């Protein structure tokens, strides 16, 4: 039984089969960035393995192909050209590449740009936006520890202790749960560890003013901004140190 026969829209697509292995490095890189954009996980896995077999290091594949591809996805998401289902497909493709690269990166001891602990706060079970942020940050070269949803302050503290991240990301989608972000930040202050971390907050009901009021380092409007903000603040902090 043929699938999807009544959903085909062929005009925007190339029907001819593309043989990734026949492409030179430049064309393969360009094609993989398109495939990442189009959310084709199998093709990303295939292309990742191809580059590795051509002697590219895992950090080079990550930086020059996957991260660069996700950067473009992030820009188009921010600009309203791509939408949530599409970005999730792209992120999923990124994951397929990362699954191959991650063990190799660990072997070579290549340093991530930084480490992130992220979670949706207590009382809140929304995670689409938080997952996007996690994936975009991973795409930008961060090591991300995702605590999931409904995270209470003790779970955050435990994860901070364990992973010693550079960045703590807090997400909330409800006006009733966003005050809990302040509880987390206040607890950090009480324990004298607030300044050990860059605290980023985000979620639909938040704004810049709220982020400032609760003592976060920055409010991030969307996933792409979260990833670029993380990179920017961590670079600043390292310069200052």
């Amino acid at each position, binding site marked *: 039984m043929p699938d999807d026969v009544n959903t085909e*829209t062929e005009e925007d697509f190339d*029907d001819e089969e593309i043989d990734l292995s026949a492409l030179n490095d430049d064309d393969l890189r360009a094609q993989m960035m398109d495939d990442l954009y189009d959310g084709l996980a199998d093709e990303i896995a295939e292309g990742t393995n191809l580059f590795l077999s051509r002697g590219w290091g895992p950090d080079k594949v990550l930086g020059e192909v996957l991260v660069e591809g996700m950067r473009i996805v992030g820009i188009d998401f921010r600009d309203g050209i791509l939408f949530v289902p599409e970005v999730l497909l792209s992120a999923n493709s990124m994951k397929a590449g990362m699954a191959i690269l991650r063990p190799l990166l660990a072997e070579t001891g290549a340093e991530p740009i930084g480490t992130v602990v992220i979670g949706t706060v207590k009382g809140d079970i929304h995670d689409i936006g938080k997952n996007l942020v996690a994936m975009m940050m991973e795409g930008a070269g961060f090591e991300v520890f995702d605590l999931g949803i409904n995270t209470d302050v003790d779970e955050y503290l435990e994860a901070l202790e364990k992973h010693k991240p550079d960045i703590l990301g807090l997400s909330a989608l409800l006006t009733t749960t966003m005050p809990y972000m302040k509880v987390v930040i206040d607890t950090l202050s009480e324990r004298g560890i607030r300044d050990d971390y860059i605290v980023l907050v985000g979620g639909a009901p938040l704004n810049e003013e709220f982020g400032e009021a609760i003592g976060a380092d920055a409010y991030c409007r969307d996933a792409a901004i979260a990833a670029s903000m993380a990179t920017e603040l961590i670079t600043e902090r390292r310069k200052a140190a």
Partner: protein
Amino acid sequence: MTHTVLSSATKEVVIGFDKPFVMIGERINPTGRKLLAAEMKAGDFSRVEADALAQVAAGAHMLDINAGIPLADEPALLAQAIKLVQSVTDVPLSIDSSIIEALEAGISVYEGKPLVNSVTGEEEVMERVLPFVAKHGAAVVAVSNDDTGISEDPNVRFEVAKRIIQRANDHGIPTCDVVVDPLVMPIGAMATAGQQVFTLVARLRDELGVNTTCGASNVSFGLPNRHNITGSFLSMAIGAGMTSAIMNPLHSEAKTAVMAADVLMGTDANCAAWISEYRDPNAAVGGGRARGGRRRKRE
């Protein structure tokens, strides 16, 4: 999962509960279109061709072809219209007539597997239509009225539909090749017309697992802003289990309602059809869309 597969010489369309709703273009029908009727009768099929192309461009997955013109040679006109439409588009067709000879003439020139529209529960009609539907391996629309007329009770109509399906089976037509039409009445004349359809469609889905279709525009006959009524009707009918309709895809209210219902029913995978229809074309200036690379189809 019931799949009704229709085809032209080169293209297949599947009607099913796990598939996007199938829009069957209604425009090629001279009933109430004096100009089209006069032209077709005089052998001028230019408007038929234009209507076929416009509906397919607007998103019709199939087209309904009707040549019901009083005092004309309907079998010959229907056959001619079918041949012409099949020469200019590749979507499968619904062959629509209340005259059995016209259905036979249409099916005999058709390339592929058509939807024969329709058979009723009337004894004589069943015994004349079902044999040639079976012989050609076609699918058939079963209209849920019989010798006693159209019942206002959806449970009576359910029994009629069930009887037609059984008779079709007796003639060797599988249940998946029977698409039931619950009969849509104008809501402006009968306040229960909507509820009747929703109740019947839900029973047909839950108890018999059969696909359904209807003449959707009928529901809003005689009302102002009627295309929005048709659109809401379609969304609600899809929610109840309707899987296709003969409708006008050029009416954006109706088409949008169908596309939104596909999203909400989960049959528009990753909301891809919705997004590609409504993505702002002017937004694609900076990033990936503008790069013009070799794009590939998402599986």
